[in-house]
């Protein structure tokens, strides 16, 4: 494997030394471009109390290309589909090489606090979120309890 770019080494060091509150990102023992991520469900959101596992992978041309991020824990959210793929502008066309792993994780945390059903990835979830928000929130809490709280 090619030597790890200075940029990735620096970012990893900083993530370990000054972790983002509510988020842990640990590089894999055998692959420094692969991160095991755990995001705590934000307070006052339907995901509160849940621990959500994600995987984050830095592609060969990172930071020119965005990291690839996916939820592993099942989650009921209008911008996250059944495969755990995330609809987030900075992971797609709004990516800038000046952004970092840290900013990506903060954006994902913010997405959990403020779901956006007008830019949906999971259509049925987004639909319910729009027509019956309280039922959608109930579903989200139920999924959090069932999939994100296993001791």
């Amino acid at each position, binding site marked *: 494997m090619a030597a790890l770019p*200075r940029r990735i080494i620096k970012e990893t060091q900083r993530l370990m030394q000054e972790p983002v509150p509510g988020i842990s990102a640990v590089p894999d023992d055998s692959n420094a471009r692969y991160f095991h991520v755990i995001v705590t469900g934000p307070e006052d959101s339907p995901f509160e109390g849940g621990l959500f596992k994600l995987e984050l992978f830095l592609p060969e041309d990172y930071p020119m290309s965005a990291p690839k991020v996916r939820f592993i824990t099942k989650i009921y959210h209008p911008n996250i589909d059944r495969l755990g793929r995330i609809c987030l502008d900075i992971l797609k066309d709004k990516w*800038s090489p*000046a952004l970092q792993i840290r900013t990506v994780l903060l954006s994902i945390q913010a997405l959990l606090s403020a779901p956006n059903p007008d830019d949906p990835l999971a259509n049925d979830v987004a639909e319910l979120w729009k027509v019956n928000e309280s039922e959608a929130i109930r579903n989200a809490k139920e999924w959090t309890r069932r999939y994100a709280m296993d001791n």
Partner: protein
Amino acid sequence: MATSQGNDSDMDCSDNEDCYDDYNDYYNDDNSDGEQLDMSKTDPEYFDYKCLSEEEVERLLNETVESLSNRLFISPSLAKVLLHSHEWNSNEVICKYKENPQQTLIAAKIDPPTPSKSIIVTSTYLSCPVCITTLNIDKFIKLNCTHMFCKDCWTTHFEVQIAQGISTAISCMAKDCVVLAPEDFVLKHLQHKTSIREKYQHFTFRDYVKSHPELRFCPGPNCSVIICSREIKAKRVVCDKCNTGFCFKCGCDYHAPTDCQVIKKWLTKCADDSETANYISAHTKDCPKCHICIEKNGGCNHMQCSNCKHDFCWMCLGDWKSHGSEYYECSRYRENPNIAHESAHAQAREALKKYLHYYERWENHSKSLKLEEQTLEKLRTRINKKVMSGLGTWIDWQYLFTAANLLAKCRYTLQYTYPFAYYMDTGPRKELFEYQQAQLEAEIENLSWKVERAETTDRGDLENQMDIAEKRRTTLLKDFLDV
């Protein structure tokens, strides 16, 4: 030649001698104008266009770039960005630039929206925000914004963007910065990377052609021809290299008399409702008189039962005799005049019935076109045999191919009259349209009947029928082709 500049540009440039037109010479080279005017009067489908090679278009674009760059004393690279963001309308760029150069450069994303404060760099070393490497200041470069990055990062950024097919839209690396990287800036960072440079130039060319309203890539498979016309109209153009025909305005299959939006709506509807309409694709129907099963293997919709010789219509199963008359009703859909007072359920059923009526005819003519193509193939084989055995020459039989080609052209138009009628509002104009459509349809089926029986049809009779069918087609297009 009368310049049409005044009516298609919303900029008031008429009294400005700056706004000259550098295309005129290009288009004016060999056509005599008198002839063009006449053609467009007699043929509603007449369209003046040219098929150009990539090299010719490159030259054309470069001439525009060159003259703008000389006019405004700007680099060709900047001229390209300005033209690209103004649909290659030089006049508009000149007017805007002379009026307010700052605003023009901001709108074209050459300059940042808020003027960048000049940052005073005191140290000789800087840390690049992308690669986190500390380097001498001379290793850094920026666009017209304030965002400095090291040269190596710019190079990698361009390589990654180009690999994704992005070219004219490559922007600064800073978050939320919209400033674009012009061609000279990009190429400067790809100095020894020939294949990436070529890719980049290929992609920018593609973007330029796509943003140019007077140019269209031929949609034919693996065809590199670019069609060029001064007028942007929904008219038929045919590529002279691969023979693909399409609508110049929208680039899809030609669709007169229906316009670009309506045909799009219709095709989407057909795709959405494909399941409902599926049962229609029957190749066999029962004779309405003796009920023997009849297979349709020709394009003509005037059927004759092989068993009882009854003449009937494949579409509506009605007696063919009634189809020749002025009161021909097969193509028209009779709406229930009291439908507004019926239940929602009945209205939905009526809407479906109406759609299926038009869809069925649209689909049937499309099938007929294919079947008539097969008829033509068989005819070709038969005539080949005749010529080989001394029965006439190729020239003697040529009129039959002309007839078959004309039939295809007429039926194609007829097929596209159905979506047109479907979306038409009820009223006298629709009545006139349906009358003309019915007349056209009757003459086309007569022509098809005669082409299928080519060798036994009198040549004069056939040519007469060709003339009638084409006249009906042109009349309908003259009255309703609104482009």
